[in-house]
């Protein structure tokens, strides 16, 4: 068995034995699901379908909490040092934690989709292939962001502070908490600079508007490019030893991860139609009679 495969297996095993993991990856996301579906959507099937996107986005973006915390803990406790004297590489360590996280995210997402369909009677689940692609690029990219956070912080406390600083705008300005179109106009434009916005709108596009992969190409490509970049940065900044100082250039590298969405945000703000699509989806929710709604035609 390759190092990567045996590490992935072990990471999955360890997560399943961790009570915190159960809370944050199973109890918390499902709680969110019932909050959104039962209260925000008032169990209305079309509204549940609309809110399923943000619920899954929460689940997918949450990857970065667990991955950053575990990596910092492994470094602080000297667990990484032990791996450092073996032939295991930094890429093995990082990639295995991403894959384990991905494998562990899939069941919860599946349960959410299943509950939406069979408990809340969502008429159509939209485009499940798009959903699968988005969950994949989403968990890998946000997971890599967590690995970068772990490498530019020294202690668990610093990690949690930085996580909060990143997390709050991601959930409040992206449409994950309140629908993007419901936010003030200026905030909507700021939201276009955040990766979370593209994940949320694309998930909504896939689930509510049945958009295909090609219709969601901008978001998918952007998240994929971002995933590769953040993973590369995480591998560059990886530190085995707790006492090794963070090089000054590390902070620059970490900032580079914001670049793709800075550029895409600038472009989307002037030429793009992602915002218009998000607004259209939101307004269609208020006008149930709108017959060009894909989830309706599928009925």
């Amino acid at each position, binding site marked *: *068995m390759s*190092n990567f495969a*045996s*590490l992935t297996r*072990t990471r999955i*095993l*360890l997560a399943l*034995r*961790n009570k915190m993991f159960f809370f944050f990856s199973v109890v918390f996301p499902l709680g969110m699901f019932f909050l959104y579906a039962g209260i925000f959507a008032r169990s209305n099937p079309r509204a549940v379908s609309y809110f399923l996107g943000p619920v899954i986005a929460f689940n997918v973006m949450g990857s970065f909490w667990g991955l950053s915390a575990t990596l910092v803990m*492994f470094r602080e*406790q*000297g*667990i990484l*040092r*032990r791996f*450092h*004297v*073996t*032939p*295991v590489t930094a890429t093995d360590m990082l990639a295995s934690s991403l894959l384990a996280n991905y494998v562990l995210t899939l069941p919860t997402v599946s349960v959410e989709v299943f509950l939406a369909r069979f408990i809340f009677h969502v008429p159509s689940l939209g485009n499940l292939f798009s959903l699968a692609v988005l969950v994949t690029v989403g968990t890998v990219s946000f997971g890599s962001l967590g690995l970068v956070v772990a490498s530019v912080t020294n202690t668990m406390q610093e990690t949690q502070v930085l996580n909060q600083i990143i997390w709050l705008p991601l959930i409040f300005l992206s449409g994950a908490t309140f629908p993007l179109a419901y936010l003030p106009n200026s905030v909507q434009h700021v939201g276009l600079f955040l990766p979370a916005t593209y994940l949320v709108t694309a998930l909504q596009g896939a689930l509510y508007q049945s958009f295909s992969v090609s219709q969601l190409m901008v978001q998918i490509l952007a998240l994929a490019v971002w995933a590769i970049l953040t993973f590369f940065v995480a591998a560059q900044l990886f530190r*085995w*030893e707790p006492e090794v100082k963070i090089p000054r250039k590390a902070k620059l590298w970490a900032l580079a991860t914001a670049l793709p969405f800075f550029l895409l945000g600038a472009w989307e703000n002037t030429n793009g139609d992602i915002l218009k699509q998000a607004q259209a989806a939101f307004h269609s929710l208020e006008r149930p009679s709108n017959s060009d709604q894909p989830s309706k035609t599928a009925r």
Partner: protein
Amino acid sequence: MANPVLQVENLVKRYGDVEAVRGVSFNVEEGEVFGLLGPNGAGKTTTVEILEGLRDPDGGSVSVCGLDPQRESEALKHEIGAALQSTSLPDKLRVMEALRLFASFYKRGRKPEELLKRFGLEEKRNTFYNQLSGGQKQRLALAMALVNDPKVIFLDEPTAGLDPQVRREIYDVIEELRREKKTILMTTHYIEEAERLCDRVAIVDFGKVIALGTPRELKAHSGGATRIEVRLSKPESNGALTNLEGVADAREVDGTYVLHSKRPPQTIVSLVKHLEAGGNELVSLEIATPSLEDVFIEMTGRRLRD
């Protein structure tokens, strides 16, 4: 292989302005147990970590099994086994899982089953790492260091923080490895450990090797004299104590006078006489057989223990 397994020449390592290792040189031959003995902060761990490929040196050259740890670190890691200091494993990893996981990283290796038996961990095979005692954790660390059947084993302070009984248990394990003619480089700040386990010892202080040889050679170097340690009610000059019968040298270390004597009974008698004449009194007296501690005191004027 006629060449030494480990070659260290003029090794230098700096942390900022601090020179942790200042020109360390030694060789370790195949089948030898070699000890780096010295106080905490002497540069032992840094030296070992450079040999393991965990840190890059700032000067000098090192070779491990004919490999350069800096440039051939991947090939090197298949050849070495290590029990590190300040390391641990995930809490919820079971003993057997840890051995299997680490075994999976190497091309060749020993059966985890066999290692479990050898290190007396059979009953603990399904125990979580965080439920092991300190001694069990250390035995697991040693078992893991052997999982790839390494050509050279690094043991960094293998008994630090363990109680005396557990420490002896670990000694037995290391002695068994020694009988198997394993090449081992170990660091320690326990005299007893170095004398009992090592074929050769390098005494390290402030990043330098201050003495090197077999424990016997090193002790002979200090004249094979008995150490007499006395505490007095009033200060004495070192000169007066050196003039006592049979005393080779005398010095004050942390408020205690340390005398080395070839004829302890005569020395003690003349010491008591001398003190009485000067109105001084003996507060305590201790006699120790020659050990590596004497070598250290002689070279540095300080004690090795913390």
